[in-house]
């Protein structure tokens, strides 16, 4: 938070630059301040048995990135995941909400296959085609103390929409 607070005193262009630096080198902070009003953040929301993940940002792609950070946060502290290994992910489905689920499920599959955790994400969207890069490292049980393994991202509470303030929300329930 100290870094984020410090950014408030910088000029707009500097702010943007710093934000990108933060985003790239501090593995997925809880809140990235990009401008005075525009923030990108993630959060969890409650579900009886499982857990909801929500990303909010100024673009759909960035909201997808934040939703992915939220998903990692179900397992461990995203900031504790190093960006040692890079994995490329591509998805394509008929609509943008299905695409969010497909993106998160692709990450779940890669986490399981590679026995990795991811802490940082870059998503590019072209219509309902997604190309993304995820950075992470192999699971270290003693350091990451993973709370739970995620079985799948679901269509429950699935929403991708633009809020009145212009920011995009991307959310769904993940089954743990």
């Amino acid at each position, binding site marked *: 938070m100290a870094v984020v607070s410090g950014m408030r005193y910088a000029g707009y262009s500097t702010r943007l630059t710093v934000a990108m630096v933060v985003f790239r080198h501090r593995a997925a902070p809880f809140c990235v301040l990009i401008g005075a009003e525009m923030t990108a953040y993630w959060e969890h929301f409650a579900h009886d048995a499982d857990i909801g993940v929500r990303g909010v940002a100024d673009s759909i792609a960035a909201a997808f990135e934040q939703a992915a950070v939220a998903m990692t946060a179900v397992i461990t502290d995203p900031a504790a995941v190093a960006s040692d290994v890079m994995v490329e992910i591509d998805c394509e489905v008929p609509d943008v909400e299905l695409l969010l689920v497909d993106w998160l499920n692709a990450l779940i*599959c890669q986490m399981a*296959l590679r026995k990795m955790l991811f802490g940082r994400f870059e998503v590019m969207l072209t219509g309902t085609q997604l190309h993304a890069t995820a950075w992470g490292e192999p699971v270290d049980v003693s350091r990451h103390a993973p709370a739970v393994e995620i079985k799948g991202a679901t269509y*429950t509470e699935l929403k991708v929409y633009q809020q009145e303030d212009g920011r995009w929300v991307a959310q769904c329930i993940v089954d743990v």
Partner: protein
Amino acid sequence: MDIARFVKRSAYEWEIAPTGNMRVPVIIYASEALIRDMDDKVAEQAVNVAALPGILKASYAMPDAHWGYGFPIGGVAAFDPDDDGVVSAGGVGFDISCGVRTLRTGLQRHHIETVKTALAEELYTTIPAGIGSTGHLHLKRHEMDDMLRGGAEWALQRGYGRPEDLERIEEHGCMKGAEPAQVSAQAKKRQQDEMGTLGSGNHYLEVQEVREIYNAAIAAAFGIADGDVVVSIHCGSRGLGHQIGTEFLKEMVIAAPQYGIHLPDRELACAPINSPLGQKYLGAMRAGINCALANRQILTDLTRNVFARLLPEADMALLYDVSHNTCKLEEHLIDGRRRKVYVHRKGATRAFGPGHPDIPEALRAVGQPVLIGGSMGSASYILAGAENNDQRSFSSACHGAGRAMSRHAATRRWRGRAVVDELAGRGIIIRSPGYRGVAEEAPGAYKDVAAVVEAAELAGLANKVARLEPLICIKG
């Protein structure tokens, strides 16, 4: 949940009459107090299930029902393949055939007291649990297909377990109709190092003590008595099941319009049973069931090996193995005639009543064992399928306590270390790779399992046989 929307059929049976798109009523078996504590989403989801094509009799919810995805957890629904009935990947869920099996050790509590700590350590180091863990077995492609066809029977052929185990497993340990060719390469890849692993979340291995017997005759038939030590294993089909669920949910959501199916909730993704996609899913899902059965069989063998080293006098006979997340073709009496229907149980246990031919002969007279997992640190129960429950719930009962609180709320209320210490004070040893997972599974985050099994009994779904209290819990 607002009780006003229900018609009270009895103290433990509550109905929502069909309106709008509903083809059948919703029936929830629970006490008024349990229903009041349920989230409104349980009724909403059960109502959505009642709108699916080909649904028979009612959309049921068990006493432990809670808000799931698509189906409520604790949801039961049967479909007629000849009346456009559907099979739903959402109605089975991600953890295909997740279930519980219980082993009888033949020991009493005092036999294990002196080695309890060593037993906990040895089980914890032997049973692969939690994220990143791998099994001792690494399957090649053809071995994977054999496993997916053979289930626990395959595991037995590979040297895991005893021949007599099979008759104590649903489907005799091997789900017929499995089609490994319908399971994607990705799903198989996810599973190649995960055979014989526990997983995480609410999955566990527990050493338990029989603390109370409610029905001596059935307990005797099950071979359990007050003070006995048993071992229960709760886990499922691991990455393979998760991947099958993920892929078919997507395929069914996208294909629904072409089958003329309107999905009230996309998570209810389904396809007609008699369609290529429906058949493909059934083949893959049955392979997932076999994966879960093989997985629990291997874990059983690992557990027996630990007991053989520390407590060689332990018998370790399998009492029974039940599955929770399935869709199975079964014969049920509907409107006076026997019909073959596809019964979805999402977080519900099959609970055949006395005399059913699929119950092992030694237990047939008393009903199928129904193994109810509590939460870590709370009681578990053994029930037996009740007479005539075929007419109430397609022979189904509850599967566990059911969560009362979200994981998020649980981590805010409890610290994992404090939970472990508190349980240690009560003589319960917890071993887990992380404290946060322990906090999320804190006993207080679950409903009162005693109230749930009480309701299951009084609703006529299953009879209480015994209560088990944990001594050691290995959590993933």
